[in-house]
């Protein structure tokens, strides 16, 4: 299934944060969204799930298959969130509920969206943990987030996002808060899941190195608009827009 964002505009407190964003995510592809802080990358991701800050005004279209997410009632949107469209956040130390067991966090939305009973949900949760390579999956279900390392927590957060078999996964800077040594593992995991599960992934990052490692398509954002989109090789090797060129030139030790 494709997720298409067209002419997405977001105004917050009288300021235009997104000024007409166009993006298209396809199944089985990782779409990288790059740009400096404040360019609107994260806001684009949040807008898809209707999680924009209080008081934000949105216009444009975000279509999932045939349906416009922006035209949905809160109830309909809630059924899509965590179900067909899931999200992984930047810092797993804060995005997991500190007081709930891993098992609870993996199963609560499964039971709600997929109407599974406790035992089915638990079995599936253990499978998911194995899928994201958490050792001792059964035992891990009874533990709490603070008992895991940062990289493990992000794997768990990814398992939580995958629980209801989403078609679209939005990953907002999923490696930024992690040690460099574990970043590659998380990226490989995301890439593998995208291929195996035929997910459409939006990978939001300011790190062009991350981008070049896993993305199929790359979009570059600046001041609330996408300035350049294209296949990774083309955008990263032969950028058409001067801003993309400037971004690439700012990388230490690399020449475009």
């Amino acid at each position: 299934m494709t997720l298409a964002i067209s002419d997405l505009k977001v105004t917050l407190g009288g300021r235009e944060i997104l000024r007409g964003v166009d993006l298209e995510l396809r199944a089985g592809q990782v779409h990288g969204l790059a740009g400096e802080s404040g360019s609107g990358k994260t806001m684009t991701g949040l807008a898809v799930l209707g999680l924009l800050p209080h008081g934000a005004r949105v216009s444009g279209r975000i279509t999932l298959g045939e349906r416009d997410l922006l035209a949905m009632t809160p109830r309909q949107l809630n059924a899509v969130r965590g179900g067909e469209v899931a999200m992984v956040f930047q810092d797993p130390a804060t995005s997991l509920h500190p007081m709930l067991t891993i098992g609870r966090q993996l199963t609560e939305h499964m039971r709600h969206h997929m109407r599974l009973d406790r035992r089915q949900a638990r079995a599936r949760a253990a499978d998911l943990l194995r899928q994201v390579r958490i050792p001792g999956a059964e035992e891990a279900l009874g533990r709490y987030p603070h008992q895991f390392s940062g990289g493990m927590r992000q794997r768990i957060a990814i398992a939580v996002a995958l629980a209801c078999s989403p078609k679209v996964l939005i990953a907002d800077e999923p490696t930024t808060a992690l040690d460099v040594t574990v970043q590659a593992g998380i990226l490989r995991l995301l890439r593998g899941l995208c291929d195996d599960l035929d997910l459409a992934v939006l990978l939001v990052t300011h790190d062009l190195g991350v981008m070049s490692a896993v993305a199929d398509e790359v979009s570059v954002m600046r001041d609330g608009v996408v300035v350049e989109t294209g296949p990774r090789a083309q955008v990263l090797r032969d950028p058409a827009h001067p801003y993309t060129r400037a971004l690439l030139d700012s990388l230490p030790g690399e020449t475009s």
Partner: protein
Amino acid sequence: MSIKRPPAPGDDPKAARREPGRRGARSPLARFLVRRVLTALLLAVGITLVTFVLTNLVPGDPVAANLGQRALGDPAIVAQWRTEHGLDKPLPEQYLLHLRGVVQGDLGTSQQSHRPVLDDLADSVPATLELAGAAILISIVVGVAFGVVAALRRDRFSDHLLRVLSLFGISVPTFWLALTAFYVLFYRLRIAPGSGRIDPGLTPPPHVTGLYTLDAALAGQWDVFSSAVGHLVTPALVLALYTIGLLTRFTRSAVLEVLGQDHVRAGRAKGLPPRVILFRYVLRPALVPVITVAGLAFGSLLSGTVLVEAIFAWPGVGQYAYKSATTLDLPAVMGVGLVVGGVYLVINLIVDVLYGVIDPRVRLS
């Protein structure tokens, strides 16, 4: 993966040898509880020492307070009285005697009522517990509900209204409120019953817990029950108003803080129903600071009972403490100190245990 669980002091060696993460006979929560109870026992001994020392430091001669003018002039009578009450022995010995008595359930004899202090306390403590318990229950339920509403309706009319109400509750002196409530509700409007715990025409329910409402319900005496509840409502509300205000403010800020946290947004991204987000994702973490404040508030509530009991003629510990202190009835004063200290200990223990229940990081670290 790191499992942060160093063996805690007080762990038995078997538990320490057990593989971490395996569920054994003693769960982390049970061990956490044992630790907390042991600390509480140590503190209890400390309380006996402090009440004893403080009571003996009080300027004033219990002999003068208890014997008449003529008896005071007779050294033989004074010496006999001092021997009778163990006042002729050195202080450390007096303390050890006192401690032995406490352990055996003997708190001495009140010099005023000439009854064992324990019996006096058994009469007055349940009355105060009923009043303070009702007040803290009302405060928690109302204060937390108000705080949540204020946070969710931030900067709207209901938030402003609740802000004014809670400021009123915090700033109005309890004795003024008690007098005004008594005057207006009983004397003028006649919608509240008068002083005391039940109507004078009724006999108290058979003693089980000493809480009239509970005892009357247990005995099925519904006329006594409704009278007891009626008498309880006004003083409990008067006492609760301050803590309601306090808890409303604290709950509001705690909820607002949690609302801005990442895990709440992540919970929304999971498409969980709003009810689940509110209770499981927002309220549960927000309750940790609220419980701390509620525990502290219970302390101020206990001191408030002295005034409220006096105004509503409620035969509780507050009245007993006041009478004992003004007559330098030292065994009674020590007894009250011990009870109040014990109540604080229990409240602290409850707060600690609730921390552990709500937040796994407390009981697992």
